[in-house]
């Protein structure tokens, strides 16, 4: 059988990663045997596809080992939460500006609905900024999408404040 190529390395590595150690030897042997049989019968290309299919068919609860993601999960959660909390604090800071200004001047006069709408707008922007940084990895695209999010925020804000487009929600 030495003239046959070995089974697809990535799928073998994946199988070794998820399979319970007590079943590893017999199952890998069965997979290899079927792979060589399929090469003989169908050729390399189809044998590779069938090998992948059979590895995936072994993804069953009683054959999968207990995979621990906790260390990785905690790391990701802390990083993401840190960033999201930073954005939320910035949003809260911005929201407190009119509240503080109202104590010193009559020029600023916000009611509860104003704070509510601005709060929703700021927190949505914070959420979308966080989402952009989470999902997009390239610096250039991150910058483009962040600018788009901020532009949308400023346009909605301006529309609500002074009515740029004359929508039903436009301010005066």
């Amino acid at each position, binding site marked *: *059988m*030495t003239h046959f190529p*070995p*089974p697809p390395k990535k799928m073998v590595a994946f199988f070794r990663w998820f399979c319970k150690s007590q*079943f590893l*030897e*017999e*199952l*890998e*042997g*069965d*997979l*290899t*045997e*079927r792979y*060589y*049989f399929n090469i003989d019968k169908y050729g390399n290309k189809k044998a590779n596809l069938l090998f992948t*299919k*059979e590895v*995936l*068919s*072994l*993804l*069953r609860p*009683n*054959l999968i080992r207990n995979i621990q993601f906790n260390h990785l999960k905690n790391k990701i959660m802390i990083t993401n939460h840190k960033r999201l909390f930073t954005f939320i604090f910035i949003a809260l800071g911005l929201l407190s500006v009119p509240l503080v200004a109202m104590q010193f001047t009559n020029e600023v006069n916000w009611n509860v609905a104003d704070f509510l709408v601005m709060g929703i707008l700021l927190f949505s922007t914070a959420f979308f900024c966080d989402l952009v940084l989470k999902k997009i990895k390239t610096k250039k695209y991150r910058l483009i999408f962040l600018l788009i999010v901020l532009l949308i925020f400023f346009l909605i804000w301006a529309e609500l404040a002074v009515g740029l487009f004359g929508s039903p929600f436009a301010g005066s």
Partner: protein
Amino acid sequence: MSTYHLGEFEEIVLLTVAILNGQGYGNSIINEIEQRLKRNVSLGAMQTVLKRLEEKQLVSSVFGESTENRGGKRKRLYNITSEGKILINQSKEQRNELWNAIPNIALKFC
């Protein structure tokens, strides 16, 4: 009355293990089923059932020899246990009983 009832595929696997008489392992059991029943079986489905039958102590297993066409990995050879034999006998008797209970007229075609 047994406390464990076999599913249809479990029964087929158990019978095939009995047919192969101690020489059955994952691939040989699949080949036997495919040849005899003209039915496709995946390795995943087969292994799940074999492990379940082993947990229920209906089959036992030992490591066999390693061969070159298995990449040097050993086979796990399955054999039916006495509990397994009792269960397939019970299953056969139950089916025979049901077949015998069918009135002749019900099996006649128009």
